[in-house]
């Protein structure tokens, strides 16, 4: 095939052929299977590329956040990690007072516990797994509007997390949840690279929230990583790629 013909085919897709050129090309394509196949392929490329995309929900305009400049995702995530660290320190000083007693409306404990609790097990907003008269929601806010929420944000290996799914549930379908190292989302290397399925939540799975244990191991992604979950930053995310949040395994 000559370069001239390839150019003619491309120009025909751009609607740039003269009448004579267009007839020449048609006549040639009728005779040359190779050129006809190429023309068909390139026409298909244009059809695929110009196909409509579904309309996507646009995040609301947030002038303040935009004016803060180009903080970007990494910056926000770094800030979030920092906040988590601060919460851990605050938690270390407060959790002894929170765990073991139902949270009073003001958040201040009514009874002081008798034994110390490791700081890592409990963030400031405490959620204690196990039998309890108070519902987990009363101690751990997992409001989820347009997002996934995980509570608590810091858990020991094997600890329980409550996951609430907001508007990431898609058109009445259940949201399939995964747990994996945050590294795959561009966060600093922490924890074991890999991921594990967590099951599904949302409409038709009967509930918009689940409480489950942090998996003890994650599987490899593309042959990389996999193994026991080690302390580090992990992401809880839904598929298809609608929502994501982070949880710190201690």
């Amino acid at each position, binding site marked *: 095939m000559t370069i001239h013909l*390839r*150019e003619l085919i*491309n120009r025909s*897709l*751009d609607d740039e052929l003269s009448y004579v050129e267009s007839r020449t090309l048609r006549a040639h394509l009728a005779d040359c299977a190779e050129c006809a196949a190429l023309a068909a*392929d*390139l026409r*298909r*490329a*244009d059809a*695929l*590329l*110009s*196909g409509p*995309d*579904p*309309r*996507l929900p*646009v*995040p609301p*305009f947030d*002038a303040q*956040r*935009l*004016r*803060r*400049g*180009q*903080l*970007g*995702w990494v910056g926000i995530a770094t800030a979030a990690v920092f906040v988590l660290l601060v919460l851990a320190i605050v938690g270390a000083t407060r959790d002894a007072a929170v765990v073991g007693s139902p949270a009073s409306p003001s958040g201040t404990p009514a009874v002081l516990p008798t034994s110390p609790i490791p700081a890592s097990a409990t963030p400031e907003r405490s959620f204690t797994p196990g039998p309890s008269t108070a519902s987990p929601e009363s101690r751990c806010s997992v409001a989820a509007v347009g997002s996934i929420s995980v509570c608590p944000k810091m858990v020991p290996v094997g600890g329980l997390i409550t996951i609430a799914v907001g508007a990431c549930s898609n058109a009445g379908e259940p949201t399939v949840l*995964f747990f994996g190292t945050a590294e*795959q989302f561009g966060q600093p290397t922490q924890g074991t690279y890999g*991921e*594990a*399925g967590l099951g599904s939540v949302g409409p038709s799975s009967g509930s918009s929230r689940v409480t489950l244990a942090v998996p003890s191991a994650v*599987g*490899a*992604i*593309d042959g*990389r990583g996999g193994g026991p979950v080690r302390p580090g930053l992990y992401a809880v995310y839904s*598929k298809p*790629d*609608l*929502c*994501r949040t982070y949880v710190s395994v201690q």
Partner: protein
Amino acid sequence: VDWQSLYEANAPDLLRFLRRFTRELHTAEDLLHDTFARAMGARRVPPSDEMRPWLYRIATNVAISQLRGSRPLPVLRFLTEQPSAPIGEAEQVREALRSIPPEQALTLTLVLHEGFSRREAATILGVSEEGVKSRMARGRINFIAAYQRLERGLSR
């Protein structure tokens, strides 16, 4: 400048445009955020009739850095699922677009998907009209080859 109105008028198209170059929706949302953060931080803002191409120009630059930076990332495979979930045609188009040179992917998308004329695309991309045409010609061939590779890979 009424940024909120500009955002409401242009963000849906820009998000769909950027979504073509990212594996995940939230990355496209981040790029949309970067686009408007850059626009609002610009020292000079064009008159309203040149606003749309100007925003696309910023979005194009944002997308190019994303495409160059995100290349070595492995494709996420959900190994916990058996068999692997089928990916739709739209995702396959995006994956093929991400695998060809970014300049070609952006040119094809601006003209064929966003409906810019070759001249407008040339202005947005900062190249000549001839440059747009040659990028489209090379891009079409690379794109369909990548797309067909994906098709074969999926049917195996």
